[in-house]
């Protein structure tokens, strides 16, 4: 083990190196760029022999990733915001073709108006695209989630692409102490890469991406859903294995002071850190407050979340994106898991990189306690 001062982006690039990514088509976009730049430097220094393709757009990044993955090599790309929106057509192709492409995403708001700062609108936009989605609170988690995600993605009973999220700027650019595990240990954990077919196997020609009529399309989609269901268990199983190396837990979500809490906040990514700090303060005053931080958003752990939150007096779900005209994405899922038994309040915060402070978290708990719960969105501005 090796502790280094690294930004989240650098930690991500290190993960890509250790995973042994072989083809990396990528297009720059703030705040993702340092991931691409970090990996380019690794290649330039000969610490990876990957083929780096500096494509002319994110649409081509994902298209080339599909070509490379279909040719049987370990493939990754990375993006943010407008880049993810541009590639979204092929994001669906990647999962439809069952290609285990790995994609770190530095979360950033979507235009218009244009904004380069963090919120989760970009990856929430593609939450139904058939990719595994994992969100990270810290650089450390980002690094480890990438390794776990690839291990699960390439499992023969899964074969789905995976996107691994990190909060743009907040976590991509901040320097943390990051524990890196030995290359050989990670390599051993990941095992070999054996895709079921590859386009370079000239003797066994394969047609990838056929034209499907109503008599077959439905079955293809059912098989994708089954793969996602398989991922549910395999994520837990592989998480247990990775825990033996890192000592960290890879449950669907993290519980912080949750079990005996009466009031709980549900929030993802870096904001969970802010919430934890405030919870510590409130606990000192004897308040029974806690946090549930979802990590794995797809597949979504309805049953497990229901179990973890049942019995709470009130719950606040903090979303960092909107679903215009409907419930915000995280709230919608939690609501679905819990039904109507527990009072729940939806909050939206942090759009376009607006800061959230521990006083805001404090206020949320206060409102929950006072029973200030209705069915309108409350804005944390």
């Amino acid at each position, binding site marked *: 083990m090796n502790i280094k001062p690294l930004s989240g982006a650098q930690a991500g690039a290190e993960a890509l190196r250790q995973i042994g990514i072989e083809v990396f088509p990528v297009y720059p976009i703030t705040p993702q760029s340092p991931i691409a730049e970090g990996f380019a430097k690794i290649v330039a220094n000969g610490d990876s022999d990957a083929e780096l393709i500096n494509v002319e757009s994110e649409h081509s990044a994902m298209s080339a990733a599909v070509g490379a993955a279909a040719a049987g090599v370990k493939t990754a790309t990375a993006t943010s915001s407008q880049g993810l929106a541009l590639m979204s057509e092929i994001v669906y*192709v990647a999962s439809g073709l069952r290609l285990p492409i790995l994609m770190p995403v530095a979360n950033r708001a979507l235009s218009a108006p244009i904004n380069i700062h963090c919120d989760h609108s970009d990856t929430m936009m593609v939450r139904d695209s058939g990719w595994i989605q994992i969100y990270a609170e810290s650089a450390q988690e980002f690094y480890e989630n990438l390794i776990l995600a690839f291990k699960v993605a390439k499992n023969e009973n899964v074969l789905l692409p995976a996107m691994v999220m990190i909060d743009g700027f907040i976590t991509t650019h901040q320097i943390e102490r990051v524990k890196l595990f030995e290359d050989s240990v990670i390599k051993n954990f990941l095992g070999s890469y054996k895709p079921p077919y590859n386009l*370079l196997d000239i003797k066994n020609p394969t047609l990838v991406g056929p034209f499907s009529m109503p008599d077959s399309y439905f079955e293809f989609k059912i098989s994708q859903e089954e793969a996602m269901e398989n991922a549910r268990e395999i994520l837990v199983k592989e998480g247990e294995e990775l825990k033996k190396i890192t000592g960290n837990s890879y449950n669907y979500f993290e519980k912080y002071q949750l079990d005996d809490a009466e009031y709980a906040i549900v929030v993802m990514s870096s904001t969970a850190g802010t919430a934890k700090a405030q919870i510590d303060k409130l606990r000192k005053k004897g308040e029974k407050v806690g946090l549930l931080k979802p990590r794995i958003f797809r597949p979504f752990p309805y049953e497990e979340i229901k179990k973890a939150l049942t019995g709470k007096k009130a719950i606040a779900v903090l979303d960092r994106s909107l679903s215009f005209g409907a419930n915000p994405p995280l709230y919608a899922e939690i609501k679905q898991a819990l039904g109507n038994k527990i009072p729940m309040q939806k909050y939206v915060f942090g759009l376009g990189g607006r800061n959230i402070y521990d006083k805001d978290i404090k206020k949320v708990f206060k409102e929950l306690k006072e029973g200030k719960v209705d069915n309108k969105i409350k804005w944390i501005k």
Partner: protein
Amino acid sequence: MAEVKKNNPKYSPGGRTCAGCAIPLIVNNVLSQTEKPIVAGVATGCLEVTSTIYPYNAWNIPCIHNAFENVASTIAGVESAFKYRKKNGFEEKIKFVAFAGDGGAYDIGFQAISGAFERGHDFTLVVYDNEGYQNTGGQRSGATPLGADTTTTPAGKVKKGKEEQRKNLTEILVAHRSPYVAQAAIHDLEDLKKKAKKAIETKGPTALIILAPCTTIWGFPPAKTLEISKLATETNFWPLYEVENGKYIVNIKPAKEKPIKEFINQQKRFAHLKDYPEKIEELQKIVNKEWKRLLKLEEKK
């Protein structure tokens, strides 16, 4: 077609194109010009929808269809995977060919092609140019000629078909400093095969742009595909030429140039022009100007 391997052609006969379609002829003749193994990419369009209908497959070689506008970046990804594996001891000598219609090349797929050419991937782009979005019912493309009646530039009481002249993708690709770009046609198979061999075997991004007369949308009898193709060249509408490392060679110079009328008279998409001789004149002028320009380019050494 002696060189086409009858037993196991790279692309099987019996695809579901319209009778008289030029596409299967193009694909077969291009792919059979090299002994080396080929991995193909294909853009959404007539070729893809007629050759890959699940669970059937006309391709006897590895083939990938990704989407409409990204065949160049897709094949770039495959070729990069090949480069990676070659560095690590993979010995097969594979060639890469990307097929696209004119929509997938001149228009929506152009950016990906330009990027792949600039980056210098080792592949051949083969455009079967049927001068429109034919698979989706005959909408205009950047390759549709002036005056053509298409579903999105319909001839009507005031409009006389497409109002713009077609784009010249061949020259645009030459401007990318490609080592080999050629225009070919199916009525001259000897010329086409020679060019296919050269394009595939030349290292770097190369292109073949092949006129693909479309019986259904252009509106001519299926038996006349080759005749229409030949007229396109004899009228200088579709000159056969190649550009090797920037040097132009015009392969066929008609002894006696036929008027453009002879080409368009046979096709329903131009039928309305008989009432507008001035439109035919305009098209003739464009063809003459382009031909002169091409001859000048050939003179320059």
